[in-house]
């Protein structure tokens, strides 16, 4: 589905990613974990077309995305839920959802979009309750749900999420992750970037550890949970033994 090879990317002259190769298969939830500043967001923004890579390739559904604008990537089915719940705060929940489908036009789309909005309400019932409310008045967790639902309105094949758990009550995070797992069952692929490694590995099939722009560990969920470096650095294991 998504194949990234030798990706180098960053900001102006600052090279953040130093040759990263990762992939996401059909129907897979793949997580990229790592400390602050490792380049996790840079990775997602480059795949989404917001940042232009210095070198390397991004292939989506066997198509090289190099010439694709950010909009065209969304159209191709590759959608990013950015960090920090960027919802349109002065628009209502429903208007936010409609905007998520802005690339979908043409005959019969209107009713299809309406159907999809209903579906978002069933996935995230709280959004239905708040449908007429300004998005800015929602709680952090509700805004995150709205951001995800808005992204889903474009009917993506691959959903990329940047730190969806940040600043949200753990119980809400669990709810969101449960919904993500459910969507995977229906065929969605997910690339999940998280600092909360424990949470991310609870739903991921595979994962990568990104440190200072390089992948230093990769493996199945079980392998990452069993890896002592991952355990010590990201899962808070072994602290008692270190203290001794």
């Amino acid at each position: 589905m998504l194949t990234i090879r030798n990706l180098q990317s960053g900001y102006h002259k600052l090279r953040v990613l130093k040759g990263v190769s990762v992939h996401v298969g059909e129907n897979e939830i793949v997580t990229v974990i790592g400390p602050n500043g490792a380049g996790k967001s840079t990775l997602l923004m480059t795949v989404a077309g917001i940042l232009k890579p210095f070198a390397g390739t991004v292939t989506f559904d066997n198509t090289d995305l190099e010439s694709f604008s950010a909009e065209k990537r969304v159209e191709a089915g590759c959608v990013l839920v950015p960090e920090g719940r960027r919802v349109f705060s002065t628009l209502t929940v429903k208007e936010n959802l409609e905007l998520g489908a802005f690339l979908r036009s043409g005959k019969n789309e209107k009713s299809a979009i309406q159907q999809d909005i209903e579906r978002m309400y069933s996935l995230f019932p709280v959004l239905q309750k708040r449908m007429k409310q300004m998005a800015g008045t929602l709680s952090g967790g509700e805004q995150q749900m709205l951001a995800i639902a808005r992204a889903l309105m474009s009917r993506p094949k691959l959903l990329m999420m940047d730190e969806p758990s940040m600043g949200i009550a753990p119980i809400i995070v669990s709810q969101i992750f449960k919904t993500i797992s459910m969507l995977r069952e229906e065929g969605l692929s997910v690339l999940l970037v998280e600092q909360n490694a424990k949470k991310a590995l609870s739903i991921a099939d595979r994962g990568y550890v990104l440190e200072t722009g390089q992948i230093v560990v990769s493996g199945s969920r079980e392998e990452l949970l069993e890896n002592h470096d991952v355990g010590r650095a990201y899962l808070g294991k072994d602290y008692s033994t270190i203290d001794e």
Partner: protein
Amino acid sequence: MIFDKKAETMPRKELEQVQIERLQTTLNRVYRNVAFYKKSFDSHGVNIESIKSREDLPNLPFTTRADLLAAYPYDMFAVPLRDIVRIHSTSGTAGKPLVVGYTKNDLKNWTACTARLLAASGITEHDVVQIAFHYDLFTGGFGFHQGAELIGASVIPASTTLAEKQITIMKDYKTTALLCTPGFALHIAQEMDAMKIHPEQLSLKTGIFGAEPWSNSMRRQIETRLHCTAHDSYGLTEIMGPGVAGECEERAGLHVNEDHFIVEVVDPATGKWVGEDGQGELVFTTITKEGFPLIRYRTGDIASLISEPCSCGRTFTRITRVTGRTDDLIFFDGQKIFPSEIEQILLDVEGTAPHYQIVLSRENGKDIMDVRVEAGESFEIDKLGKLEAMRDTLVERIQQELEISAQVHFVEPRTFERATKDKIRRVIDKRESV
């Protein structure tokens, strides 16, 4: 049967991505965690970021047996010892052995790799698997044991107990699969003749042999004498142990577990790629190992790649059966011994550089080593008693340090050729050539 269909039949294009991801991850880790590799890459002027595909692999320097010996015991480990859950080493070597370590994930992957190999030979949960490899520092016994248990077979850890006892177990416990060195299999066959046990009295169907090179005619001999289908397997302690590669039901080359290892074949003299399907030295890079990762390790084993896809459905590339060595390593009774190790013992005992020859033969399926040493020029006939004492010391030291039984004979001074331009032929192998 294909044990892990998803991995073993992965389309080559996907496999290529998996390999490059894992290779880059391994390179990033060894550069950070193993001083040897940081030094090696830096001194060769290699930037690991320049390794962008499998084709870039030849830009990396080799790792040799000498590098591993110099790292004794733990300097090549890429994780702290507390993360290591198993330690093995090469057995029976004088001086320092090679020490390798496995993390929990490494053991899991190793187990899966040997399980794949066993399944490819037709082993299922219905089999009674008798493992007649050493269960000790050597990787053979434990390596196969784990895989056979994962498949759910009934595993008999017979180890290298006497052939007579092996046969009794095979007969009484209704063993369906025998795993051991090919030499030991022939020894068992020999012993069966002596015990007047016909192979039809056994339930044996499958044999998986390895740890030393063996010829096709030896395979036919084993199959006729033990009434089983004999499969070849390939592995070495440094890379993982058994499970690096194995024959499938087609028995037309050994599939390399390419999602864990990248294989290259190079010219032993130049170190350059031998070209498609050319013969040369096998070089392996581990791409999933956490505890003891190795980059471009020169095995000394001679074989070639078979690039043509196999009809079994597995997409992993195959290597031919190993046909020889780049060095003078001796495979003896399941052990690996270099002549230099014998030489060191001779030197210690005799006190001067010895002139010697090692003659290998096989009697009743059992390997025989005869070490022929020139008596020093200063020895007089009346010192015969002293010579005999020295011979006994040599036999004892070889037994202790190399864990093998050898005969030692003294011969007249100047019996053997002296070093000229060519390398002296120290080893005469009269066993069936491979």
